[in-house]
């Protein structure tokens, strides 16, 4: 119902907007509806471009915000952003497990309190080597084992390299969780417990909200933000610039302040991918923890 309502509101406001556009040519007051609602002109004028190419001025108070709607169809979400191939580089020498990335991700995606899409593992490669923190999200593999086993095409690989989940199609068999060697998939064992407003947002694979009870979830590489040329939540939240996000086709990655040529960064700093031998071809690369910015301090015992 709520979806229908918001759709109707959208259409109405669309009518108002087109009224604005054609308003110059007609005599009738296109702002009648707004007057009914007794909106007082604020006096602040906004310039708008009509479809005829005319610049018109409208009082700001008459503009109605368009309710949030998925602007991209499910089909488009399954295809991906044309001409892009997203990669992430995680610089292990910069991570001190502040978990700002995790908190931002959890908050932005309205996850259940037990659930983290992004986990920060204490790792140690060998007995004599120093332990380090390894932030781990979905690897967005180019040969994704999870996608191979999904019986209903609920999880899929897009042209831009991103692996997403359609929670409205997922049957909750959890085969993908068994198939994923990186343990990056989580299950919504119960409803995520989000507020009414978020819960009623129409579901979108790119936003991954709201998470639905009985379905699988995971890191989505924030494609909704990529469409707005913004970094993923984790990359934006990290104060140490651990996460570099970018485009393989542009051969560049950035953490917001520093930008590198992706191929050079991987070559110069000996970048690697997790479990390369499995042949999953992840899109997430790691830079080894050399020349560290911080010492390794773990309040819990080392697990690995």
């Amino acid at each position, binding site marked *: 119902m709520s979806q229908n309502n918001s759709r109707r509101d959208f259409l109405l406001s669309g009518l108002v907007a087109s009224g604005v556009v054609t308003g110059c040519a007609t005599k009738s007051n296109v702002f009648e509806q707004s007057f009914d609602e007794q909106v007082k002109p604020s006096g602040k004028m906004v310039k708008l471009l009509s479809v005829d190419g005319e610049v018109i001025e409208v009082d700001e108070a008459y503009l109605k915000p368009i309710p949030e709607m998925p602007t991209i169809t499910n089909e488009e979400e399954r295809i991906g952003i044309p001409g892009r191939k997203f990669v992430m580089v995680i610089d292990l020498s910069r991570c001190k497990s502040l978990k700002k990335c995790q908190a931002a991700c959890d908050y932005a995606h309205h996850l259940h309190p037990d659930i983290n899409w992004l986990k920060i593992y204490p790792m140690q490669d060998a007995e004599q080597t120093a332990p380090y923190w390894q932030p781990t999200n979905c690897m967005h593999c180019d040969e994704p084992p999870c996608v*191979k*086993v999904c*019986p209903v095409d609920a999880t899929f690989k897009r042209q831009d390299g991103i692996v997403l989940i359609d929670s409205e199609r997922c049957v909750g068999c959890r*085969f993908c969780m068994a198939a994923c060697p990186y*343990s990056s998939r989580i299950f919504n064992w119960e409803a995520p417990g989000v507020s009414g407003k978020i819960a009623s947002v129409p579901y979108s694979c790119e936003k991954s909200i709201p998470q639905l009870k*009985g379905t699988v979830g995971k890191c989505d590489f924030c494609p909704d933000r990529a469409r707005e040329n913004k970094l993923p939540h984790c990359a934006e939240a990290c104060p140490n610039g651990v996460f570099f996000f970018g485009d393989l086709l542009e051969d560049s990655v950035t953490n917001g302040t520093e930008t590198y040529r992706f191929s050079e960064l991987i070559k110069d700093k000996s970048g690697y991918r997790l479990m390369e031998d499995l042949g999953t071809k992840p899109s997430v690369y790691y830079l080894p923890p050399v020349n560290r910015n911080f010492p390794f301090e773990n309040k819990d015992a080392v697990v690995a």
Partner: protein
Amino acid sequence: MENLAKQKIIEDLLPQKFGKQGTIWVIGLLVLCSIGFYAYCRQLYYGLAVTGMRDYASWGIYISNFVFFVAISLVGSLITAVLRLSDVHWSTPLTRIAEIIAVSAITFASLIIIVDMGRPERFYNLFLYGRLQSPIIWDVIVISTYFIISLLLLYFPLLPDLKIMIGFKERNGKWLQKLYVFLGSFWKNTPAQFKITDKAINILAITIIPVAFSIHTVTSWLFATTYRPGWDSTNFGAYFISGAFLVGSGGVLIAMYVFRTHYKLEKYITDMHFDRMGKVVVLLALLYLYFNVNEFLVPAFKMKKSEEHHLLGLFTGEYAPIFWFAISTAMIIPILILIFKKGRKPKAAFVAGILVVVGSWFKRYLIVTPTLLHPFLPMYDVPASYKHYFPTWEEWAIAIGSLAGALLVITFFARIFPIVPIHETIIETESNENETHL
């Protein structure tokens, strides 16, 4: 003289009403089913959070129960198809027992897989959006095929028996009579009909063997197509199938004993049957043991880092008690009992059968869950409850309820239809007599 023998066989084998014991048994099973149903309603309402499963142990006793059901259903193809095609006649009185075990087990295998789904109401997505590259879709296809062939293999040999039973109108009562007429009134015992069913049964018996192999091979691939230690094995298909034939034959031993003592069928399910079935179980247990040695000894010899935790967990770690219990009760002890002639007497064979089935159930649990609790990356950044798995009462209730349901189907089947084929028994006795006369 001959007619008298025939009358006696029919009288002995016609389905009987539940006695006092039977009624208690049925009520007990119904209670277990209702508890399971109540638990499932809770699960539907609260979600899978009511189970002990979490992100690491994302499959638990539902899936191991599913594997168990698929496994035990394979015995239908062994007894009705493999033995029939190899012209073995002693197994004739056991065919219907084996086939109803197969049908009821495969039914509950499908139900339990729906129970395990987070979104059971979207089950139709499997048909709307099914993708052939997923082993789950392969499983859906082969299991439904197996179910239909098993049902036909149960039904066709039943037709001459239905005709016999329709003759006992007063004994049957209104409802059963209606059912028999509905199912078998077209059967007139004509040679043409016999010819066509014989042919059909032969074709089905040949088809069901590859389908039976497929259902359990594909079920093993649900695990073996992943990278995880303990599942990443090329041995898995054969390992699963050998185990499946074993648990099914163990189940047949139990059913033989129960039907024999309860329905007084000593003349039809004889000591000879226990003796021969006992030998079959020994052979199958040795075969399964062989695959177990392959499955565990070879990786243990290498002790790859990724497999080490998993293997040590089974051999000496937290799963060691269940592991050695399963190995000894499913294989070693039954072999030791059944290898001796005395051990193949009905009562001892019955005990061996129970051991096989119970041990095999736990074996399935060990195949599913310990692997999931040994992921490649450490278990970290999750609540403490995620790192262990113990089924909740809801899971136990649903799993036990499904087992009770399968038994209930078999029980009601034996109440409605003759559990030992009447017509085929008559034919067998006649041909035996002819042979002795010659």
